[in-house]
């Protein structure tokens, strides 16, 4: 309850809070004591009365019990004397009067109850309100009532979830709570997500869930449509053979270099071989570009002296025109 809401009494009179009533403790440490002389006198009187009254009462009760049959017979004889018509006896008169009185009592009972209720409606608030105003009922309940037991008993008797769902508008509460907190941080700091996920996965059949909820067929068809599967298969099978051929060519090229080097040493040559072919500007097969050229947008590769190893000194024309050495 917000603190700024004014406190009202049961009649909705907000002015009742204008004149605060001083609360007194409901539990006094001890009752107000009488003067010792008065207390002594009272104690003496009570002792004497008890001493005298006890035998008197005992004797009286014994006499009553002994005289009870005689008294009962006497009363019966007086109420129903012999040789007297029943309508004229005292007993009949008493019975008749009793019946009439009963009828009157019953007829007046409802009115009396109603009148009593009206009296209580007026009297109880006028008495109870000042009393409650002067009693610290909260402290009284806290000190005198076993709140734990009370709450436990109440909770046992009621379906709290049902009550909350029916009586509480949860949406604004949850919204305000979520607005005021960083839920992500709270979850990350307070929740062992690994355990939660592991337990969730333990309790669910993920395969079955995926099969029932995911359209695997359409996904597979979409993937197959996106991927050129025949090309991949063809590439993977021809790649091995191409690697073998490339390796063979490279080995042969190295063999060329080794043989050339040996022959050149035997012939005491000091200059490198001139192996550039005249006029060759690239493959006849098709346009070939390196990745760098593709990215920079340059033209096709012009294989020529610029691609030659070891800085061959032969130009195309020179190599072509020089003839055999």
């Amino acid at each position: 309850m917000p603190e700024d809401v004014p406190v009202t009494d049961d009649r909705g009179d907000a002015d009742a809070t204008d004149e605060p009533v001083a609360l007194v403790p409901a539990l006094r440490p001890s009752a107000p004591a009488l003067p010792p002389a008065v207390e002594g006198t009272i104690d003496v009187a009570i002792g004497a009365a008890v001493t005298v009254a006890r035998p008197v009462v005992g004797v009286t009760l014994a006499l009553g019990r002994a005289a009870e049959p005689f008294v009962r017979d006497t009363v019966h004889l007086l109420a129903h004397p012999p040789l007297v018509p029943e309508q004229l006896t005292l007993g009949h008169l008493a019975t008749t009067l009793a019946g009439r009185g009963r009828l009157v009592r019953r007829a007046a009972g409802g009115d009396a109850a109603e009148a009593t209720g009206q009296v209580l409606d007026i009297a109880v608030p006028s008495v109870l309100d000042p009393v409650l105003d002067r009693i610290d009922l909260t402290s009284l309940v806290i000190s005198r009532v076993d709140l734990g037991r009370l709450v436990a008993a109440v909770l046992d008797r009621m379906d709290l979830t049902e009550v909350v769902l029916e009586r509480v508008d949860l949406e604004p509460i949850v919204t305000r709570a979520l607005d005021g907190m960083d839920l992500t941080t709270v979850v990350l700091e307070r929740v062992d997500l690994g355990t939660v996920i592991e337990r969730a996965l333990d309790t669910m059949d993920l395969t079955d869930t995926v099969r029932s909820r995911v359209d695997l067929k359409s996904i597979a068809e979409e993937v197959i449509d996106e991927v050129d599967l025949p090309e991949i298969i063809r590439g993977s099978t021809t790649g091995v053979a191409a690697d073998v051929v490339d390796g063979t060519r490279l080995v042969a090229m190295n063999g060329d270099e080794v043989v050339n080097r040996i022959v050149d040493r035997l012939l005491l040559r000091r200059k490198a071989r001139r192996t550039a072919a005249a006029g060759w500007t690239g493959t006849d097969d098709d346009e070939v570009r390196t990745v760098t050229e593709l990215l920079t947008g340059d033209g096709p590769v012009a294989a020529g002296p610029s691609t030659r190893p070891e800085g061959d000194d032969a130009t195309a024309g020179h190599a072509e025109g020089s003839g055999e050495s």
Partner: protein
Amino acid sequence: MSADRPVPGLKRLDPIPPRARAFQGLRAGVVSRTVAGAIDYAIIASLTLGTYAAVAIVLFLFNPTGYQFPRWPFWWFLVIGFSLMISYLTLAFGTRGRTVGDRVMGLRVVGHHGHRMWWGVAFVRAAFCTAVPIGLWWCAISRENRSLQDLLLRTSVIHEWPTPVQPLAPKDAADRTEL
């Protein structure tokens, strides 16, 4: 040359390994050419024996009861083999400049100006290669890696690895690293 005609949208990566790129267009050495020649000789030998087998089968079909394997003198095989070799080499030199062995080893025979040779030159070179196969090994001694046939006809056998046509979209090419 097709390199001079641009094909919009059809660009492809260089499939030649980086180690071999620098050798493209250079004359090949004796090892590469000997291996390529050995492959070609094996092919011609197979074709020669295949010719003999074909003739034997045809004779069997004509006379299955009194059939006997044909008995050819050895020089018949030589003549058939030489004929096949000259035809085969002429056809290869005059068209793509590659025999099967050359294609396997990434070689190409080019003419005087680095292009495809004339058919006459191709025939003479094929005959010379068939008659004097040992002339190939002169390229080990030559400073320009030329065989005897190359010296006489001013031809060259160069490294030129065949590159299959694999058009790639520019986006795909940009996403890949250099081979």
